[in-house]
């Protein structure tokens, strides 16, 4: 019997092996030499950027010998951007032979974020450079002293700093949380718009110029539906889809300030304001405008339906316009797709939009000065005007660095024209909450809409779940 218990104990013990490797060793001690790297962590979580004088910012003229760094990104080598990235890394290593870069790529967002959480849970597994979207996730890393402040490097190289525009600084700025200085290098931005298929709208008798407000859009959907044309096919299997719709509807109804109000509990997720937003989504869903198989379709399939002329509208960020550049997209090649400003709900907030910085790169504070310097050098190389020009030629996108080449993507140019009229932009509404779980909690609850939940139930679900996660 003893033997049996022992063997069963061992077998069952394997259940728990997964977690224990992630603990790291330091519970309260921080082994990283913060002063030499530009960030210092304290138990209270306040972080201050070190002065430029304490950090060797001359990364270009440093001697590198057998320095190995890792970069963890969402790049995909099947895209033109991924190909540019791989080439850029090769060029960098040729120019700096003392540095070897290990390139880890996970294109799918959910898998990327999960793997990032695993890597960032232990000092020995942290990648030297990784891609993130700012907000409370990165805040946790900064508060633990795991991110290098880029401020000394920006201060020391004004020529490089001046090449950045204002699109992406929000991802590197944590001043709202009492943390000074920039902690990341923004790479690209995005802007959420409404794309439409010119032929399908014409066929359904809808004039795109008439779509200004949410009600106009609902009327257009009704007309299209009665003509046998499916307006949207949202891929809510990837729950960021309703997450984005919820965000943009909030900004277009209450203005971008609503993000802060929700974040500091001035407005509640089960309050009147938010319930009205859920109800708008429910009404559109129940009419069949948003899709016919929302939970059975992911965002890739959603795009494919639009690309193949099966749906009239696509609500998505500007990255969609960039992706069209791959040359295989018939509707795009024939200039049959165009962009519209996302319709306002309250006209007062017609110029409030979802957008801003999209991808930002952060340098992990590994405590190794050579690795940190090499990582900063790689980011400076990657965001140099020369490299950005190469990228924009191949893959036009909203860049955080001012390129000097003309972009020939007509659709992206339309999006950028709309963006010019925007007065205020914000990213995912849940990221303004100090509770890091909020993005998952809200997106998860919004998935309840296609399962038949009422607006009140969605709000209650968010609040009930939040209570379970209150620290």
């Amino acid at each position, binding site marked *: 019997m003893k033997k*049996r218990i022992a063997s069963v104990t061992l077998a069952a013990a394997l*259940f*728990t092996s997964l977690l*224990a490797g992630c603990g790291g060793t330091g*519970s309260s001690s921080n082994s990283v030499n913060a002063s030499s790297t530009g960030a210092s962590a304290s138990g209270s979580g306040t972080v201050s950027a070190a002065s430029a004088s304490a950090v060797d910012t001359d990364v270009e003229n440093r001697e590198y010998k057998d320095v190995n760094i890792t970069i963890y990104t969402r790049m995909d080598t099947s895209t033109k951007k991924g190909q540019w990235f791989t080439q850029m890394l090769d060029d960098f290593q040729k120019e700096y032979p003392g540095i070897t870069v290990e390139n880890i790529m996970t294109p799918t967002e959910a898998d990327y974020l999960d793997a990032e959480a695993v890597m960032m849970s232990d000092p020995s597994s942290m990648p030297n450079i990784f891609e993130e979207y700012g907000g409370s996730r990165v805040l946790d890393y900064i508060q633990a002293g795991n991110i290098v402040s880029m401020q000394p490097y920006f201060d020391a190289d004004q020529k490089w700093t001046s090449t950045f525009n204002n699109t992406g600084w929000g991802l590197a700025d944590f001043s709202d949380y009492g943390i000074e200085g920039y902690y990341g290098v923004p790479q690209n931005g995005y802007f959420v718009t409404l794309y439409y298929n010119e032929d399908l709208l014409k066929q359904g008798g809808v004039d795109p110029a008439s779509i200004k407000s949410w009600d106009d859009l609902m009327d257009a959907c009704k007309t299209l539906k009665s003509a046998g044309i499916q307006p949207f096919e949202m891929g809510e299997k990837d729950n960021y889809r309703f997450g984005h719709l919820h965000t943009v509807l909030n900004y277009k109804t209450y203005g971008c300030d609503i993000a802060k109000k929700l974040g500091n509990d001035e407005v509640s997720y089960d309050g009147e304001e938010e319930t009205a937003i859920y109800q708008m989504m429910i009404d559109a869903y129940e009419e069949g405008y948003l899709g016919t198989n929302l939970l059975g379709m992911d965002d890739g399939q959603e795009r494919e339906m639009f690309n193949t002329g099966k749906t009239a509208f696509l609500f998505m960020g500007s990255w969609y316009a960039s992706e069209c550049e791959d040359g295989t997209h018939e509707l795009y090649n024939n200039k049959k797709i165009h962009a519209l400003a996302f319709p306002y709900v309250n006209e007062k907030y017609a110029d409030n939009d979802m957008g801003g910085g999209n991808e930002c790169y952060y340098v992990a504070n590994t405590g190794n000065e050579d690795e940190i310097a090499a990582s900063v050098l790689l980011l400076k190389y990657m965001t140099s005007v020369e490299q950005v020009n190469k990228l924009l030629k191949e893959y036009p996108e909203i860049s955080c660095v001012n390129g000097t080449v003309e972009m020939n993507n007509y659709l992206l140019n339309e999006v950028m024209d709309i963006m010019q009229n925007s007065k205020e932009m914000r990213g995912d509404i849940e990221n303004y909450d100090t509770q890091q*779980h909020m993005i998952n909690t809200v997106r998860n609850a919004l*998935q309840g809409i296609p399962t038949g939940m009422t607006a009140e139930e969605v709000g209650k679900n968010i609040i009930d779940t939040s209570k379970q996660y209150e620290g």
Partner: protein
Amino acid sequence: MYKRRRTGSLLILLPGILLTIIFVIYPVIRTAILSFESWNGVANAPKHFVGISNYISVFTSPKFWLGMRNSLFFIIGGFVILMPASFLMALLVTSKVKGSGFFRTTFLIPVMLGTTAVGLMWTFMLNPQFGMVGKLAEIFRSETVPNILATPVQNTWAVVLVNEWMYAGYNMLIFAAGLVAIPEDIHDACRIDGCTGIKKLFYVTIPLCKNMFMVFSVTCITGCLKVFDIVWAMTRGGPMDSSTTPAILLYTEGFQFKLMGRSSAIAMILLILGLVISVVLNSTIFKPDENL
């Protein structure tokens, strides 16, 4: 002489003991400690002792009980569908019927495909728009096409069935090992005594395969409690956690919600539950029969 032999034995066992301590015992102890702490899963972030509050949070979480219910569905499916199916398949492949070799290979194909491939394949097949379900609905001119993987309860049972489909071949091997181990003399004795067909199956074959049923039961229950991969590949535990399992919760609480302490508490609960159920099964239902 005895002392030298004992030292030799210990030296031979040492690598195994060390590996077990490093990869099994130590992680379990670390997890147990972490389950009493609060930690956001970020390297260098402080950990705080919080007593049993992680366990209280788990036991008062509706998500955990939903996950346990879904694990129960897996266990029910395992005993009601998988066990009889695997045993019948084992009877077929160990019999002398023509084509048993073909069946042996065919039954093993699903388990050789790999969980992710199986999960994706069935996800596409069950898609109401462009999958097998959609096509069938089209053939039968059904107006509504069920979206099985998006409907709570249905989605869990769909994953349970796919799981049984995948693992039937693997469990067939367990039962087949038991069946071929029954001595030929016993079969001959049965034949002489006139015990054949169903009678032989229930009074001779099944009792003599008791150990195999025990192995199946323990692996089925512990496997169902910690089922993760097939659910993750097909539904990621969604929509709205409707198809979640404790193991998925363990992962999401830890790496998405950054609640490593709570995640560890789930791991410890699963460990203890797996232990208790295994010991109870071994000492009651599968207690060695001294008459055999």
